[in-house]
C-alpha cells in the first residue's frame, strides 16, 4: 500500500468511528447551550462554542453521525437505483436501454444543484426527502457508469457463451457480468459518496438541507459564518472536517483505481 493510501485509510477509519460512536463520545447534548457565544478553545470546550453557546466538539460529533449517515444512505440508494437500471439496460438492450438512457440524458442536462434547488422549493425539508432527492439525482451518474462497464463485459464472448447455453437473465447479470464489473464500481462508490457528502453539505450550508437545531457540518458553517469577520476560525472547523473526509476517501479511491488498473496476477 502506498503512504498516501495509508493516510487515506486512517482518515476514513477515524471518521467511521466518529460517525458510529459520535453521540456516545460527545461530552454534551446536540442542542444543549452550555456556555457563552463563540468562546475560545479551553479544557471544558476543546473546540470552543458556537453562535448559540453550544459545545463545538459535541456538535461536530453529533454532526458526524448525521452528515455521514445521510450521505451514506443517499449513496447506497443511488447505487441501488443506478446499478439495477444500468445492468438492466446493458443486458437487455434494445428499446429499454434507449428509454432509460434518454431519460438519464434529460435529467443530466440540468446541473444537479440547480435541479435540487428547484425541487426543494416545493418539497418539505426532511431528511427522507433529502436522501431521496440526492439519491435520485446522483443515480444518473451511477447508471451511466454501471451501464458502460456492463456493456464492456456484455459483448465479451463468455457472456455470449452463457446466452447460447440458454442461461436466464439472472445468471447472466449476477454470475457473468457482476463479478467482472465490481472493481470500478467500488471506486465509484467512494467518489459518489464524496459527491453526496459535499452536495448535502452545500445544501445545508445554503440553508436548504438538514434543518437546525440538528447538528450538521454544512449547517454549522452557515450558523457560524459571521464569526469569520471577527477573526475567529469557528466556521472553518466544520468546513475542514468536510474537506478532510473527502480528501481521505479520494486517496483511498485513487489507490484502488490504480490497483485495479494494473493487470491482475494470481
Amino acid at each position, binding site marked *: 500500500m502506498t503512504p498516501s493510501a495509508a493516510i487515506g485509510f486512517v482518515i476514513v477509519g477515524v471518521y467511521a468511528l466518529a460517525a458510529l460512536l459520535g453521540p456516545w463520545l460527545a461530552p454534551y447534548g446536540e442542542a444543549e447551550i452550555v456556555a457563552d457565544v463563540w468562546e475560545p478553545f479551553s479544557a471544558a470546550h476543546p473546540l470552543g462554542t458556537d453562535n448559540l453557546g453550544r459545545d463545538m466538539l459535541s456538535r461536530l460529533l453529533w454532526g458526524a453521525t448525521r452528515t455521514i449517515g445521510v450521505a451514506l444512505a443517499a449513496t447506497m440508494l443511488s447505487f441501488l437505483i443506478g446499478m439495477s437500471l444500468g445492468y438492466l439496460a446493458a443486458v437487455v438492450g434494445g428499446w429499454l436501454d434507449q428509454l432509460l438512457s434518454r431519460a438519464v440524458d434529460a435529467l443530466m442536462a440540468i446541473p444537479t444543484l440547480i435541479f435540487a434547488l428547484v425541487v426543494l422549493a416545493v418539497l418539505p425539508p426532511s431528511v427522507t426527502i433529502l436522501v431521496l432527492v440526492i439519491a435520485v439525482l446522483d443515480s444518473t451518474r451511477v447508471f451511466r457508469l454501471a451501464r458502460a462497464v456492463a456493456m464492456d463485459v456484455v459483448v465479451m464472448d463468455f457472456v455470449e457463451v452463457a446466452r*447460447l*447455453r*440458454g442461461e436466464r437473465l439472472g445468471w447472466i447479470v449476477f454470475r*457473468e457480468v457482476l463479478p*467482472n464489473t465490481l472493481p470500478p464500481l467500488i471506486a465509484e462508490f467512494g467518489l459518489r459518496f464524496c459527491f453526496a457528502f459535499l452536495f448535502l453539505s452545500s445544501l445545508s450550508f445554503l440553508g436548504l438541507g438538514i434543518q437546525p437545531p440538528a447538528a450538521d457540518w454544512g449547517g454549522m458553517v452557515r450558523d457560524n459564518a459571521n464569526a469569520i469577520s471577527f477573526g475567529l476560525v469557528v466556521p472553518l472547523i466544520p468546513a475542514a472536517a468536510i474537506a478532510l473526509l473527502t480528501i481521505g476517501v479520494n486517496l483511498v479511491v485513487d489507490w484502488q483505481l490504480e490497483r485495479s488498473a494494473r493487470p491482475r496476477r494470481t
Partner: protein
Amino acid sequence: MTELLLSITDLHIAARSEQGGLQEIVNGVSLRLEHGTVLGLIGESGAGKSTVGLAALGYTRHGCRLLSGSIRLNGEELFGAPYEKLRQIRGARVTYVAQSAAAAFDPAHRLEDQIIESAVVHGILSPEEARREARRLYEKLRLPDPDNFGRRYPHQVSGGQLQRAMTVMAMVPKPDLVVFDEPTTALDVTTQIEVLAAIKAAIRDERLAAIYITHDLALVAQIADRILVLKDGRMVEEGATEDILKRPTQPYTRALVQVRRVHKPSAPQPAAQEPLLEVRGVDAAYGAVPVLEDIWLRLCRGRTTAVVGESGSGKSTLARVITGLLPPRRGEVRLLGEPLPPGLRQRNRDQLRRIQLVYQMPDVALNPRHKVEEIIGRPLSFYFGLGAEARRRRVEELLRAVELAPEFADRYPGELSGGQKQRVCIARALAAEPDVIICDEVTSALDVQVADAVLRLLLDLQAATGVAYLFITHDLATVRAIADDIVVMLDGRIVEQGTREDILTPPHHPYTDLLLSSVPEMEVGWLDRILAERAARKARGERIMEAADR
C-alpha cells in the same frame, strides 16, 4: 568487399515488469547487416523482434531500457549516444515502417505532408524535391492517382494503400536502412501479396538495406537474403534464407519450417448420409446492410466443413445465424432434419446443447472470475443436472480428454497459457455432448506450434466422438490440413463449395484461385514465380482476379 552497415553485438534490453522489477526481453542478440541486403527477423509473439528492430534506430519503447551491448551504424556507436545525435539518424539514415499504418499516420495532417516531413526537417531534400520524390515512389508502389494521392487524409485511404504510403514515407529521405515491422500482418491475404510485391520491388530498385520483421517464415523467405530466428528474446539460429528453409539446424526452426504437421486423411463423401446440420437458402442482414445472401450448406456426422473467406466475407455472420444470435431474413437452419427456430430464445435446451461454439480469443471466451471447474461444469449441471460429485468427476475426465491435468479444475483462466485456455474452451464445448461444434478462427490467436497441437486435439476428439466441425477460418494452411469439405465465401455469398479435393485441385473459380495462390509457400522464389505466372496468364488473356476487383 561490402562494408558493414549495421552490427548489433550482444544486445540486452529490459522492460519494467508488472511487479515493478526489470525483466530482460532481449537477451544477448547479435546481428550484422551489409549494404543492400535484407535481413529477416522472425519469431512468435514475445520473441523481442520489434524491440530489436527499434534498437536499430537507437530507440526503446516507454518502460524499456537498453542494458548493454553495442549498436553500430556505419561504424558509429548508437548505444548511449546523445539524444540529439540519435534524432538526426532517425528518419534520415534509418527509417521505420510500422505494423498498423492506420494508427501510425497522424489523423490531423494530409498524407503527403507527413510523408515528406522527415526528409525536409532533416534537410535532405527541399519540399519540392521531396514531393517529386514521393510522387515517383507512389508510382513505384503502384498507388492510384499519384498526382493527387498525397492530398488525402489517412482515414480516406484503404489499409493496403496506407501500408504502401508508409513505405514511401520510409523511402523518401533515401535512408541507408529501413526497418519493416510486420508491415502486412494487418492485411488480408490477397492484399498482403500485392503490398509484399511492391515492397520487394522497391527494395530491389532503390538498392535499400532492410530489416524485415514478421512471424511468418514463408513470407520473409520471399524478401530476405538472410534470416535470424528469435525466441523469448534469444537468438535461435541465423543463416542464409535457403539454408534456414532447407537445412535448419535447431528443432525450433525445424518446427517453424514444417508449418502444419497435422493432416486429416481424406475420407470419401458418405453416399446417402443424413446431414446433421443444414443451412438452406439463408439471407441475413445487420439492419439494412445485407451480409449473407443465399447460403446453402450441409454438414455430416464426423466430418469437417471449412468455411473460408477474407474479412467481410460474412463467414462469422454465418456462425451467428446458425447459433440463433442473428435470426435470418430468409431461409432456415435444420438440425437432424428438423427446422431450428430462427432466434436463440425460441430454441429449447436440447437444441442449444447440440450446437456449441469455440471462439477465436480464448482470453475473452472464459469468465476470468470463474474457476475452470465452474466453466466446464456449468453445462454439465445445466444440461444434464449432474450433482457436485459426478460433476467434478466428469470435469476431470473432460480435462484429460483435452490433455490437461485434472488439477487445472481449481485454477482461474488468468493462470493458464493461451493454448491451455483454448483447450478449456474445447472441453466446455464437449461437456454439452454436442453434435456440431462451430470453430470460429480457433487457432489464429495462437502461436504456430500451439495451434498445431490444438488442431491435432480437435481431430482426435472427432475420431473419438464423431462430432462434426464447422471450421471458420481465413487460414488456408489449416483448411488444407483438416477439412473434408470446403466452402469459399466472398462478400456474403458462396463462391464455390465441394470436397477438399474438388476445391484444391484446378481448375478453380477465379476467386478461389486468387485466394489459394496468395498464400505464401515455404519456398524461396515463390513470390516471383506466382507474380510471373499471373503476368503470363494475363498476357494470354485469361481472366485473373486481383484484390482490388473484389
